């Protein structure tokens, strides 16, 4: 499919998501808003796993960098949502550069482990500085955010419609960014690294710099998502830095389909609704989630979107 056609498909998806807000009942309205923000997190993760072939188990630190970068600034100063968002993303980018310079000397399982260790360090730091972060209990942002002034209107982020559209905006931005990456020359080099790093290097590419770029982009997107999560849902806590929140984007991405642009959203939505529906049916809902994971992997080994691409729509990016 042509670049223009691809863009149309993606914009159509965003339009569809936009329409959802007028038809969904309140509970699902809020649920989808949350899924959109978290799907942006999965998109960031997918940049590294899907397009570059690097599996990290420490991405919670980027998400948490966004959460704390935005949250602490807003909590301890008079800063508004926009500066909060910027602070969160800057924190994530800075962290990604440092981490990249250290960890990208490794690959494969070692990379997985190094990121995991740094992820743990991030989590423990939120405890160590508990007099600022209040540790696991965390900080509440509601009441501290001045309404955003857009033109002549005041917009409060806790308003459901504002929240939904802000989430959609963040998600749309990340989705289009990942589409651009998938089709750009840089993206192709990344895929080449994923397939065979040695050969790519012999072709004359400085693979380290490309991988660093991918990690920083990934960290930036993940921290954007984290900052948005903190601001939209008014809570900053260190659960978001725990290993569980490093495992989640991995699951969402693999379930939806690594290396596809729609995969992260599909995986996040499926997991969220699987948990929600199953927890209404049985108290053993994690068992249902476990079964969903096993069954998906057995029947759709390359994820939902990946399998669709392999079997039907070969044009999916």
């Amino acid at each position, binding site marked *: 499919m042509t670049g223009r056609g691809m863009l149309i498909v993606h914009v159509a998806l965003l339009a569809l998501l936009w329409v959802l807000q007028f038809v969904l009942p309140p509970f699902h309205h*809020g649920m989808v808003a949350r899924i959109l923000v978290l799907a942006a997190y999965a998109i960031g993760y997918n940049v590294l796993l899907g397009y570059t072939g690097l599996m990290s188990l420490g991405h919670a630190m980027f998400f948490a960098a966004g959460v704390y970068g935005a949250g602490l600034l807003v909590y301890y100063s008079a800063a508004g949502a926009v500066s909060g968002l910027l602070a969160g993303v800057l924190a994530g980018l800075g962290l990604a550069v440092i981490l990249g310079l250290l960890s990208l000397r490794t690959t494969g399982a070692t990379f997985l482990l190094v990121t995991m260790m740094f992820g743990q360090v991030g989590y423990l730091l939120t405890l160590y500085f*508990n007099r600022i972060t*209040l540790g696991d*209990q965390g900080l*509440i942002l*509601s009441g501290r955010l001045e309404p955003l002034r857009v033109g002549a209107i005041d917009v409060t982020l806790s308003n459901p419609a504002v929240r939904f559209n802000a989430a959609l905006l963040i998600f749309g931005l990340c989705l289009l960014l990942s589409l651009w990456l998938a089709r750009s020359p840089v993206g192709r080099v990344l895929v080449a690294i994923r397939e065979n790093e040695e050969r790519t290097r012999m072709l004359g590419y400085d693979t380290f710099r490309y991988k660093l770029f991918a990690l920083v982009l990934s960290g930036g997107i993940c921290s954007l998502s984290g900052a948005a999560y903190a601001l939209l*849902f008014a809570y900053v806590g*260190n659960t978001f830095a725990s290993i*569980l929140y490093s495992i989640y984007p991995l699951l969402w991405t693999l379930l939806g389909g690594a290396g596809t642009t729609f995969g992260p959203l599909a995986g996040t939505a499926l997991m969220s609704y699987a948990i*929600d529906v199953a927890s209404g049916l049985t108290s053993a809902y994690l068992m249902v989630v476990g079964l969903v994971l096993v069954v998906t992997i057995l029947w759709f080994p390359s994820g939902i979107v990946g399998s669709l691409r392999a079997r039907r729509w070969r044009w999916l990016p």
Partner: protein
Amino acid sequence: MPVEKLTRRQALKMAGALVGAGIASQFVGQAPAASSPPVAAAAATSGKPIKIGFEVHRTGIGAAYGKWYERTTAAAVRLINETGGIAGRPVEIIAEDDGTDPKRGVEVIEKLAQHHKVDFIFGTLFSNVIVANAPRAGELKIPYFVVSEGYHVPSGRLNRYVFQPGITDVRAQVTAVAPWVVKNLGKKITMIFPDYAFGYDHRDFFGTAAKRLGAAVRAMIPIPPTETSFTKYFSNIPRDTDVIYHVMVGPGVLTFVKEMGEYFGTRKPKLFGFIDSLEAVDIASPGLEFLEGTYLWEAFPRYAGSTLTAAEREYRRRVGVDANGASTSDPKDVSAYSHMFGCWETLFVIKAAVEQSGYASPKDYRALIETLERMTVFPEGLQHPQGPKRFVGRLHQVFGRQFISQVQARKLKVVYTAKIEDSLYPPEADYTKHPL
């Protein structure tokens, strides 16, 4: 007393619409509280049920508490429905697991409020979940009753929709027991606590209280969560420590006690701990021998002593707890006795508030909240088996008696009871000035 007048007026206004027979007794007597004895067991309920959303830790690190919170809640609701429901309406509990996870907790709040359209939300222990949930409950403008003992509610950090009317907070507990600890156990104290919010409440409030009493905190050792071995940290305990103040949560606690026993042997300093460490754990478990002779704070004595009131006996029978605080069907299944009564008592506070305010539907939330804020005393009885309570409306927080027990022959025996007055501290918050 203006408080009473208002309650009475509102109640009278609604009286015609109310079916339940127990209502009248609510505004007789001096306390606007759940003081009425249960009415005839045959009282029928009718009308649309009052739906109470119950957020519960069924999975995750809080699951042992969650299990007993659920049993206690079920027993309380059974009693309420047998005795005329709330304002004559039957009570329906809609339970949802939050996985002891703040993110999921917020989703549960939304699901209960928006999908199940419950009247109130209640439950949950872990303070990180509550602190994440509270802003959402405030935005959705739905009363949210927590049973957590964290200092988050009385600190004023939450909002006007959040109440803790069934269980005392950590600051009150610590304030009540600190003088006894310093007087009876020693003035050189080493504190060992979990490196998270629950531990910080202890660190901050006990530390300050001890200092005021002329004691010295010689060392503070915060233990990171998920730690599984503790021996290596014990060499940080100063030699001249008189008393080790310990509070832990989670499955690591038995290891902690066992390793402390192995480390100190017979040269042990005195020990004072919080039962939170050992909720749902048998005091006679292998490895806990070291606790013999040491002291523990309890909110509600687990082992039934000779002074068991009729109300507590009935409470134990209805929840299914034997004289050792374990399940009547499985003596190995030990309860979270010092916390779960909070669920029971909270439900009866909700009942009292609904009946006194004339609450009929969510449009009456203001009346309900204002009524709650005017409540002052909950007398001891089947609705409040742990003992009498004082409720401070501006803090949205209840205060009650505290107990110190000694481990004797692998059981807990109460050696000191702190009065409600001993647990009061200068209030820092006033929720009644917050917007609704």
